[in-house]
């Protein structure tokens, strides 16, 4: 049996959430939802796991702190110690207060850029990557729910039948 994918189109986020609840309570796994904006409270309904982006951000941040400290030590202490304003740079810790602002900025820089780039790669939305949304109207004013037969024990007909019970504007079925 060929795998099929069913798209149901809605025009209101609350209606969409109601429909998702109906399907999930009938034991259907909703693969994804394409929406013009983030729909608050949808993730727990369709069982999307919490993002681990914050953890990557933390790791990029401490990488930034460590790199900046290494840089201070090498540039300012080891390679070419400088006497700035009567503060000779012979040890890192005695000069630490002067380095903290830069360490802070570099930490934020690494955390923010690392997080943003990871986000774009993970979503496959780096500039130039092909669009993956099944219907361009999801970038305008429609909310599109995707259900796949491979995720469910039900066939395409049964899924379409369940979706007909929800106030969907249209239901499209495609081969995968």
């Amino acid at each position: 049996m060929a795998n099929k994918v069913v798209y149901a189109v809605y025009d209101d986020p609350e209606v969409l959430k109601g429909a998702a609840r109906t399907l999930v309570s009938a034991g259907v796994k909703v693969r994804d939802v394409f929406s013009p904006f983030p729909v608050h409270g949808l993730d727990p309904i369709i069982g999307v796991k919490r993002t681990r982006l914050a953890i990557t951000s933390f790791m990029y941040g401490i990488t930034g702190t460590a790199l900046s400290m290494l840089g201070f030590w090498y540039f300012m202490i080891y390679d070419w110690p400088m006497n700035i304003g009567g503060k000779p740079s012979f040890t890192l810790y005695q000069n630490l207060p002067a380095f903290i602002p830069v360490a802070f900025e570099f930490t934020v820089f690494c955390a923010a850029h690392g997080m943003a780039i990871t986000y774009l790669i993970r979503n496959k939305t780096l500039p130039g990557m092909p669009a993956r949304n099944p219907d361009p109207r999801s970038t305008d004013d429609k909310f599109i729910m995707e259900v796949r037969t491979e995720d469910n024990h039900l066939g395409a007909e049964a899924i379409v039948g369940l979706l007909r019970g929800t106030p969907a504007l249209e239901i499209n079925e495609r081969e995968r």
Partner: protein
Amino acid sequence: MNFTFSKRARTISIALMAIGAAATVIGILGDHTDHHQRTWANLLVNGFFFFGIALGTLFFYALQNATETAWSVMVKRVYEGILGFLPIGAAVVVLCLAAGSLGLNHIWHWMDPRVTDPTNAEHYDALIAGKSGFLNLPFFWVRTIAYMATFILFARWFRKQSLALDELSGEALVKRHLLMYRRGALFLVLFAVFSSILSWDWLMSIDAHWFSTLFGWYVFSGMWVSAMVTAVVLVLYLRRKGYMPQVNNSHIHDMGKWVFAISFLWSYLWFSQFMLIWYANIPEEVTWFQSRIDHHPGLLWTMFFINFAIPMVMLISRDAKRNPRFLIGVGAVIFVGHWLDVLQIVMPGALGHHFHGVGLLEVGMFLAFLGLLMYTVLTTLTKAPLTPVQHPYLEEAVHHSI
């Protein structure tokens, strides 16, 4: 639902006051400084720290009104409860200042008329005399009375209007709410000026030769974070006792975020003040930090470590901010941390080389004030329903979800 002051909580708060008072009395007997300076300085530390909790709460309450924040409507009675301590804290601070003005203590060196008298060669202090256009007793008392009157009047007005909202509905409710919104904004404008100047007047002028423009914000952020900690611990206590069933994890998460964020604000301001003074290394500017780093480095760095590193490491994750155990644990530690901060602001200037760190007197008075705060706040909480009955944003607050 109305809060009932349980017998256990009452016993604990009275016991804290009694143990604290006993330790204080023993401590005072062992206080051999001139004019019982150490006792007065302790009274100022605790008076200001606990007054600061109520004042930080008043600021936050006005901020919530001025920004029309919805989620905090759910817990606004707790903030109003903490405001119950404001008059007591104000009275203690005014008592210390009055005693200083009358010469009963010598915490504020500039209050002595001899230091500004050019004919008095022995005591004349040219630096203080140069500041006497601002630091003179009549103007000082005009300012102090103006701050205290403003704070107490606004706190009473907010509480009265908040209770009045419960009786209103429809258009009258919205109108009254908008009035609170405008008064909240007005208070923020007054507070922006007063919070800075009061910290110069009461705390920075202890070391009258020294000045720092950041000092006001530094003291203010310390008050603010102490207020946020007190509020979240109270809400967790009340929720655990089943009084606030509609307070969900999202409300707790938001209160935890405030503790986390304002800890960072405080650390940022403390460090900004320190780093600029350290870097410039100008003799007249470094005195304040020098006396603390040279003579009380343990106190200074412990207090900075507690107030910066502990909330940063412990509260950075989302789960920690939703976990009552984490919040209460970190909250208790940084509550003491900010008390140590006020201690190291006041003591080196007020006692000089007579300051030998935390002793029985310090701990005793802290416990007595903690008991008094508990008793006052919990008594105030019994006087109104813990969840507001009517508020334009009540429905949104109940369904708060992040």
